[in-house]
C-alpha cells in the first residue's frame, strides 16, 4: 500500500493493529465504548480519522493512547474488525521512537519494561523507583505513600527480586528482530 502523500498511514499500516485503519467508516462505536473517553482529546474514532489524514504530529503527540487501558471494548465491537487496542499500543511505540511521547504513562511503560528486562521478571520496588526518577511525579509519589504502608504490613511488596537464570537473554526476545537487523 504505497502512498507517497501519506507516509504516516503507510507506517501505521505496517504495525500491529494498523493494517485495517483505512477500513474505518467513522461510526464511533469505539469512542462510544471507551471507558476513558472523557480523559481523551480525540478518542479512537478521531484518531482513526487523523491517521487516514496523515496527521502524524497530532496523533503521536496526543495523550490519548496513553490513557488507553487496553480493555478491548472498542476492538471487540468494531464492525470493521479493526484491532484498535493493538493499534493504540503501536501508536505508543511510535510516539516513543519518534520522540513525541510526553505522558506519565510513557514513563511508566518504559520503567516497567526496563524492570522486567533487567531481571526477567517484575520487581515492583524497582519499577516504582525507576518510574518516579523518570517522571518526577512528586504529587503521585505522595499519593502512593498511604498505599505503601498497608502493602508492607500485608507483605505485598517483595524486598528482593525474583530473577531468571539468564536475564541478559531478555533483550534478545524483547527487542524486535526488525530493529536488530537495522542496527547491524
Amino acid at each position, binding site marked *: 500500500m504505497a502512498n507517497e502523500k501519506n507516509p504516516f498511514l503507510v507506517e501505521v499500516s505496517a504495525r*500491529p493493529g494498523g493494517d485495517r485503519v483505512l477500513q474505518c467508516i467513522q461510526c464511533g462505536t469505539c469512542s462510544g465504548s471507551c*471507558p*476513558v473517553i472523557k*480523559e481523551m482529546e480525540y478518542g479512537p474514532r478521531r484518531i482513526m480519522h487523523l491517521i487516514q489524514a496523515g496527521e502524524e504530529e497530532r496523533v503521536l503527540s496526543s495523550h490519548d493512547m*496513553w*490513557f488507553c*487501558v*487496553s*480493555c*478491548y*471494548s472498542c*476492538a*471487540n465491537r468494531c464492525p470493521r474488525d479493526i484491532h484498535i*487496542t*493493538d493499534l493504540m*499500543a*503501536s501508536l505508543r*511505540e511510535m510516539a516513543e521512537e519518534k520522540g513525541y511521547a510526553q*505522558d*506519565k*504513562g510513557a*514513563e*511508566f*511503560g518504559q520503567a*516497567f*519494561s526496563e524492570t*522486567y528486562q533487567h531481571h*526477567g*521478571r*517484575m520487581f*515492583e520496588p524497582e519499577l516504582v523507583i525507576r*518510574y518516579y526518577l523518570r*517522571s518526577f*511525579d512528586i504529587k*503521585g509519589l505522595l*499519593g*502512593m505513600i*498511604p*498505599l505503601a504502608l*498497608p*502493602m508492607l504490613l*500485608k*507483605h*505485598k*511488596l*517483595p524486598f528482593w527480586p*525474583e530473577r*531468571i*537464570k*539468564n536475564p541478559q*537473554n*531478555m533483550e*534478545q*526476545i*524483547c*527487542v*524486535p*528482530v*526488525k*530493529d536488530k537487523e537495522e542496527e547491524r
Partner: protein
Amino acid sequence: MKYAYYPGCSLQSGAKEYDSSTRAVFAHLGIELEDIEDWSCCGAVHVEGEAIVTLPARNLALAEAQGLDTIVAPCSGCYRNLRRSSQAIAADKAVRKRVNEVLPDGLQLRGNINVMHPLYVILYDYGLERLRKQVTHPLAGLKVASYYGCMLTRPKDEFDSPEKPQGFDKLMDALGAEVVNWPAKAKCCGGALAISHTKVTAKLSGNIMVSAKDSGANVVTLGCPMCHTALDLYQKKAEKAMGRPLNLPILYFTQLMGLALGIAEEHLGLERHIVSTQPVFEMLQGAGA
C-alpha cells in the same frame, strides 16, 4: 489432568494469596500443576511490536521442553498474552520461524501450546457437576458480584462472551452463593493506569464497586491480580472519588472455591487483603445459624 503452571510476576508478590489458593484448590480437586521452570515476565500491557509474540513465547517453549502441552495462567493479563502469542505462532509459519530465531538458550517451539485460565479449567476440563459434589461448605449468605474485567473475555475467544460473560456466575452458583446480576461485570477497572494516572483508576474501579453494591452484592469475586489491586488496594481512593463508603470485600474466585470446598484457611490468604474479608465469614455464619 496435568498442566504447566505459569504463576506470573504478581502471584509472586502482591497476589500470593491468589497463587496459594489456586494451588490448594487444584490439589484438592486432583488437578496436577507443574511449575514452568525459569519462566519469565509476559510483558503485561507494556510490550509492543514483535515482542508481543516473542516475549511470552519463551514460556511456551519452556512448557514444551517439560513435555507439557497446556499452560494454566491465573493472571488474566498473563493468560491473554501467552494465549495471543500461542495463537499467532499456530496461525503463521513465518511467525514461528521468527520466534525460533530469537528464542535464547537453544529453546525451540515445535508444537502448539494451549493456554487456559484456571476458571476455564474448572468449567470445561473439570466440570461443574463434578465440582458440585465436592462442595462441603456452600456459600449461602454471600451475594456475589462476579467481576470479569477485560482480558479474561476479550478479545473474543472460545470460552465466554466478551459482553455478557457467565463463567464466574455459573461457578458461584455451583458453590451455593447467590449470584448478583449487575451491569458493570465486564467493564474495565483501569488497573493499567494505577500508578501513572491514579485518579482514572480510582474513578473506573469506583464505578464498578458502586454498581456491585447498588445491585445488592456483599462481595465481589474476580480472577485477575491487577483488578484485585484496583478494587482492593485502591478502594480507599475509589471511595474518595465516588464520595461514598464502599467496604466491599474483593475475593479471588479460588479463595471462594477454597471456602466452599472446606480447604484450610492458611492456604487462602484472606488475611492479606487491604479491605477486611472478615464480613465474609460473618455472612457465611449468619446464613448457617
